[in-house]
């Protein structure tokens, strides 16, 4: 960008870059930096899960070291799911735990020098769409079609579906707002740190660490928590008590 920001000298860079181009049924498709960072994150998580599996295969009655750590994480995640889903919780331990660890590690991977994969809308939109699909699967599984129709016409009686289009829009807005919230939070942190290092690199020594703690650790952890909590709230609102 030649004159994106006037004083920068052109070394502000937080965009997604293409690395490798190939042709997919006549379309030009790029392998981008997001794919590479995502691959690194996923490989680290797979390595961690293999190590956890080995540790739990020879688990002892009195846990110590790594086994202790793994049990702590699992207990924390299960407690979180239990707290907000009640009786439906056991069916969702796996899914919520998986997306929690994945999003958390993606968000804080900015500390490892990667561009956080969740700062790409192509990563967060599928997560939002997954939530949307699970919510509506549960809706059609646990509610009668008549009740769903009455719910979609909700402030007015079911024979007068004037409110239906508005309720439909608000249903479709759920995955979009979920994914945009995560995306924009992480992108704003990434952009802020890139601007800081680009514009103030003369004096950016040591003290940006405090900002990393806020933008990467705090913001990333809060947004992970919020994404999982909202997913659980939406799902459990469709299930019977």
């Amino acid at each position, binding site marked *: 960008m030649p004159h994106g920001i006037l004083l920068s000298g052109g070394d502000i860079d937080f965009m997604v870059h293409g690395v490798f181009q190939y042709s997919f049924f006549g379309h030009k498709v790029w392998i981008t930096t997001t794919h590479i960072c995502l691959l690194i994150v996923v490989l680290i998580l797979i390595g961690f899960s293999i190590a956890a599996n080995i540790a739990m295969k020879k688990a002892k009655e009195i846990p110590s070291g790594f086994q202790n750590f793994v049990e702590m994480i699992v207990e924390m995640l299960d407690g979180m799911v239990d707290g907000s889903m009640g009786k439906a919780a056991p069916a969702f331990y796996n899914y919520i735990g998986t997306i929690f660890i994945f999003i958390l590690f993606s968000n804080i991977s900015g500390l490892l020098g990667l561009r956080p994969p969740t700062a790409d809308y192509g990563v967060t939109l599928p997560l939002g769409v997954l939530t949307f699909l699970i919510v509506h699967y549960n809706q059609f599984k646990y509610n009668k079609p008549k009740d769903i129709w009455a719910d979609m016409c909700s402030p007015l009686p079911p024979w007068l579906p004037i409110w239906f289009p508005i309720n439909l829009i608000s249903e479709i807005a759920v995955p979009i707002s979920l994914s945009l919230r995560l995306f924009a939070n992480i992108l*704003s942190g990434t952009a802020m740190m890139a601007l800081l290092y680009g514009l103030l690199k003369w004096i950016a020594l040591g003290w940006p660490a405090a900002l990393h703690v806020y933008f990467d650790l705090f913001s990333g952890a809060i947004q992970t928590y919020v994404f999982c909590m909202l997913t659980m709230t939406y799902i459990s609102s469709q299930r019977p008590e």
Partner: protein
Amino acid sequence: MDFNENFILGCSAIGAGLAVIAGIGPGVGQGIAAGHGAAAVGRNPGARGEIMSTMLLGQAVAETTGLYGLLVAMLLMFVKPLMP
């Protein structure tokens, strides 16, 4: 009509500045939520954890509109959709 690049870039920058004014609303809203959260903890210190998580959830949802403004500003500044 033919405007040159610099004019469009300047107008995009003004638009980006106006778009992040959207941050006022969430700021006020989050402050109100935090204030009420603090009052609730003062009234009932035992329920601190639950109040905390409810407050953070509400604040994060309230933050969304501000983030939309930020996204518009970023699109105007870095993606430059108005450039011919």
